[in-house]
């Protein structure tokens, strides 16, 4: 769905037509559900939050401002709703989802030695490629924050800048985590 199409759907929603929401729902459900379930984990909760997301989109359609890319906009809302859900239900918010750059990331980012070490490690892992490993299993090897970036990149087709805005973390951290995730997935045969 293009930004223009999304805006047209929003206009329909503002006029009270549910068709606009239906179109967005059909197009964006995989994207939203993947964002939400990546955070809340529990499928039932993910379904609840995803439903609430679309209801909220309906209720706040009048406030949508076109021009800044709807995918980043809806990702921000869905993500915040999922995190709020964790807070409300008293579940722990994984540290990885915090806006602050982890110490580990910072240390790695600024250490050339560490970068070289990762590259060497990656080469050695390529030899141990496990082709039969399903994508889901490969994704399980990623940190939640890395998985989130991969999801936004692939499902939302967001730029690194947009991802950094959605996640409220520096762009350098985003690119670092993305590269790290891609490296890990490459070991399992994914390019």
């Amino acid at each position: 769905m293009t930004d223009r199409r999304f805006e047209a759907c929003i206009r329909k929603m503002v006029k009270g037509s549910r068709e606009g929401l239906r179109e967005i729902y059909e197009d964006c459900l995989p994207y939203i559900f993947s964002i939400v379930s990546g955070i809340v984990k529990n499928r039932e909760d993910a379904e609840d939050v995803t439903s609430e997301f679309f209801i909220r989109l309906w209720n706040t359609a009048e406030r949508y401002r076109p021009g800044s890319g709807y995918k980043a906009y809806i990702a921000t809302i869905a993500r915040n709703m999922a995190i709020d859900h964790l807070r409300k239900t008293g579940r722990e918010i994984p540290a990885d989802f915090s806006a602050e750059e982890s110490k580990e990331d910072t240390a790695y980012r600024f250490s050339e030695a560490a970068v070289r070490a990762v590259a060497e490690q990656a080469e050695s892992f390529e030899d141990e490629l496990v082709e039969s490993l399903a994508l889901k299993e490969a994704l399980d090897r990623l940190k939640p924050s890395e998985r989130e970036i991969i999801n936004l990149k692939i499902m939302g087709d967001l730029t690194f800048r947009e991802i950094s805005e959605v996640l409220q973390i520096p762009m350098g951290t985003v690119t670092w985590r993305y590269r790290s995730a891609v490296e890990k997935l490459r070991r399992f045969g994914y390019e």
Partner: protein
Amino acid sequence: MSKSLEKEYRKMASSDLPDLWNRISDALPEKKPVRRPSFKLAGPIAAAVCAAILIPALIGLGRKGNAGGAAYYTAEAITDGQEYRSSKSAQSAAAVTEDAAMEEAAMEEAAMEEASMEEAVTETAVEDAAEARAEAESMAATVYYDVHLDNPVPVEGEENWYTALVLEARDGALEAGSTILLYLDPAGDGAEEIRTGLAETEIKASLQEIKEDTGSLYYQILSCEKWEADE
């Protein structure tokens, strides 16, 4: 053998999706029509506001006028009484005193009657004015302005209140370039979004959108007033 991450990821994310549409559809509230500023209402509202301001002012003037009249009348009566008293100076002091006392009592009674009538009229007028003012206020409370705002900032410790710079005001209700204090309607859907807060990041995102918006931004404002920076 390399596998396409993107293709397989999309395939995986699109499989085993829940069907939530019925559930969502059942929970959707009916959309209320967006209230736009009504120019039809502008006249009656202005009239009501003027009435609310002018009626008490006119009554105040009227009261001053009447009070002046009453004072003149009383002074005249007293002067007459004195003249009367002096003209009857030959008569007995007791009789003069009695007559003067009777006359004064009659004058006092008349003045009191007048005052109570005036008070009654004033009370009714004040009640009417208060009613008109309340009506005007309630009408004014439903007026929405079309304004283009920049970066509304929540007022610390004041829920639902924000300050914002007016970039454009089409209705002439506000001045472009002025900073206003605005109260976002807690009942409105949009305000709900900010009011319930959600995460801070989302508010930031909203502000960003407002800032980047080049078009005219329709903002629902329940009431607004100019914000003095010194206050």
